[in-house]
């Protein structure tokens, strides 16, 4: 049949591979420990959450094959690993997911002696609550959730979460249960990771009472609404707003992490339990933490790097490193919080309360 011939032709067209080059695209003095030639490393990550040449260079330096599969959310990664690891060595989950995976025994232990490059990571990014002593994870990139706003439309500078709720303008909330409740709890003076039912109820009431200026609860497209002028303020991820600021080349779009209660998140590389090649996975971790490599990743994905050595060597693009979503003043950084794993019972309370907010605000 002609259709199948056409299909076969198309397949053949796409399976033509480019010739292997002998030089790495990024100059680095990192050397692969011997003895891994011909082996395979299986990575599980988001699709474009990596540098342009990170994988190809690693294959070249170590003489290995890298299989790179993608998932679309932390929850999906968790669901897959709970079914049993189908054969991945390393994945790239967010902080609280690392905690859940660690507690559930889905992660294997790292021998930090295999990862000398961890010395390049700033101390403030190591030994976090979600993985004390970095027994299972090494820092990859980090990010914040804050306020993206159009300073011309709003008319004044924004520095606090309260201003978002009081503003007489159009606001987009972020469709992230724990982020929105963390914000409300901070404003009310509670622990943003509380498990107390009354405090969660109070935060819910605060959100409902102060929803008058909300025009959308955006699932990760608040930055686009902001850029298109549909809203004046968007509670959004710093990286997304930063991308819009770069794209529009304009003065009026701003991003700010509030002076109290900004949300911070880490992406880590974790060593998965029951993976086929944990040794090579640790070599991979050491490779990624090499300043030039981690810098090239950050310059591609535009999430800030924890690699202090790379920053000090000036390897990160200057405009990005100095932008408001990266260069966050120390006193603001100290007031940020992580969204932590609160356990299934509290998680249920949060989800129910968020549903009530959505129903009562009609958004």
């Amino acid at each position, binding site marked *: 049949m*002609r*259709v199948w011939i056409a299909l076969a032709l198309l397949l053949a067209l796409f399976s033509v591979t480019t010739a292997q080059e002998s030089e790495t695209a990024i100059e680095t003095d990192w050397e692969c420990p011997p003895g891994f030639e011909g082996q395979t490393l299986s990575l599980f990550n988001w*699709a*474009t*959450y990596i540098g342009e040449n990170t994988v190809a260079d690693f294959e070249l330096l170590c003489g290995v094959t890298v*299989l790179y*599969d*993608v998932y679309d959310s932390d929850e999906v990664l968790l669901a897959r690993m709970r079914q049993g690891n189908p054969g*991945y060595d390393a994945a790239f989950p967010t902080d609280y997911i690392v905690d859940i995976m660690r507690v559930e025994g889905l992660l294997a232990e790292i021998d930090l002696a295999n990862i000398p490059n961890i010395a390049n990571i700033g101390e403030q990014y190591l030994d976090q609550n979600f993985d004390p002593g970095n027994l299972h994870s090494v820092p990859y990139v980090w990010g914040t959730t804050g306020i993206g706003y159009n300073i011309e439309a709003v008319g004044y500078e924004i520095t606090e979460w309260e201003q978002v709720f009081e503003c007489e303008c159009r606001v987009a909330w972020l469709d992230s249960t724990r982020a929105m409740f963390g914000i409300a709890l901070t404003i009310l003076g509670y622990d943003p990771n509380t498990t107390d039912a009354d405090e969660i109820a109070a935060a819910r009431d605060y959100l409902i009472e102060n929803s008058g200026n909300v025009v959308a609860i955006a699932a990760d497209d608040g930055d686009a609404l902001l850029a298109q002028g549909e809203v004046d303020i968007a509670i959004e991820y710093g990286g997304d707003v930063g991308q819009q600021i770069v794209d529009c080349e304009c003065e009026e779009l701003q991003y700010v992490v509030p002076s109290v209660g900004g949300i911070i998140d880490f992406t880590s590389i974790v060593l998965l339990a029951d993976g086929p090649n944990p040794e090579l996975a640790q070599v991979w971790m050491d490779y990624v933490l090499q300043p030039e490599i981690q810098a090239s990743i950050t310059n591609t994905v535009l999430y800030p790097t924890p690699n202090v050595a790379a920053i000090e060597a000036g390897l990160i693009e200057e405009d990005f490193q100095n932008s408001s979503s990266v260069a966050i003043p120390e006193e603001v950084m100290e007031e940020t919080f992580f969204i932590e794993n609160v356990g299934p019972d509290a998680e249920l309370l949060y989800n129910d309360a968020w549903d009530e907010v959505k129903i009562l605000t009609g958004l």
Partner: protein
Amino acid sequence: MGNQVISRAGVGTAVQTTAQGFRADMAVRSIGKVGLLVTPIFSYFFLWAPIALLVLFSFNDSRGVDTWRGFTLRWYENIFAGTMGGEARFATDLMLSALGNTLFVSSIATVIATILGTMIALSLVRGNIPGKKVIDSILYLPVVIPEITQGVSLAIFFKLIFDFVESSTGVNGTPGFGSIIIGHVVFNISYVAIVVRARLANMNPRLEEAANDLGANQWQTFMRITFPLILPGVIAGALLALTLSMDDLVVTFFNSGVGNTTLPVFVHGLIKTSVTPEVNALSTLMLLFSTVIVGFSLFLQNRYTDRPYNNR
């Protein structure tokens, strides 16, 4: 025909005698006429406007897919960069290998599902199996149950099978293309069977009897009479199966192993950073490709339905 004329006349006179100025039935009729004109316009607008936008934004000179910033062909150039000898971007490479996986899985799943589905349809319409009604209604089950249920139950099923095989033979099975293809066949069979059965039910059974009468055996009758007549239905079923299979995200994801990323899984994986216009460009090419296939199948269908013996 005669009946209709009489009844129409009857209604007309009845209304004339009761209603004076305002003719309710005429109002309904004229609204209906406008409705008949407007409905397809709206339906086609909602059907095609998003697709038109997708094509338009594949030429957008910006990394985002939401704001228009000028015309470019670079996303198309990127797609073909690797095959034209240039340097392919990492994401483009991933996307193309995902497309290759998708075409591989969906074409095999479509062939198997079409054969099995056609066989089921034949045995349901022509056969005389006990419990036909029950089988008939079970056929609709994969069409109505949520995809996530299907995906997870299949994953559990495969895990049980693998565990059983491992404990009895020591062979360690892992999910891979095999389990994805089986998963796709499972939900595709129903769609194919339903489409083919509709076609089969419309076919005049006397044609087969006539063929038998004229000395053709069962196989000859099937190959020369039945199959050519239901072929448009089989092709329609196969196209439906191909589309569903290429689209599928949930069943694929829960049953895939290492190295099985398909295009829908890849596109979802872009969410963390941003969906690039390369996806739009690739979708546009695929749209072009499927338009050609559908056009081809319509051409086939016309050729077959034009034959005189197909009319009752």
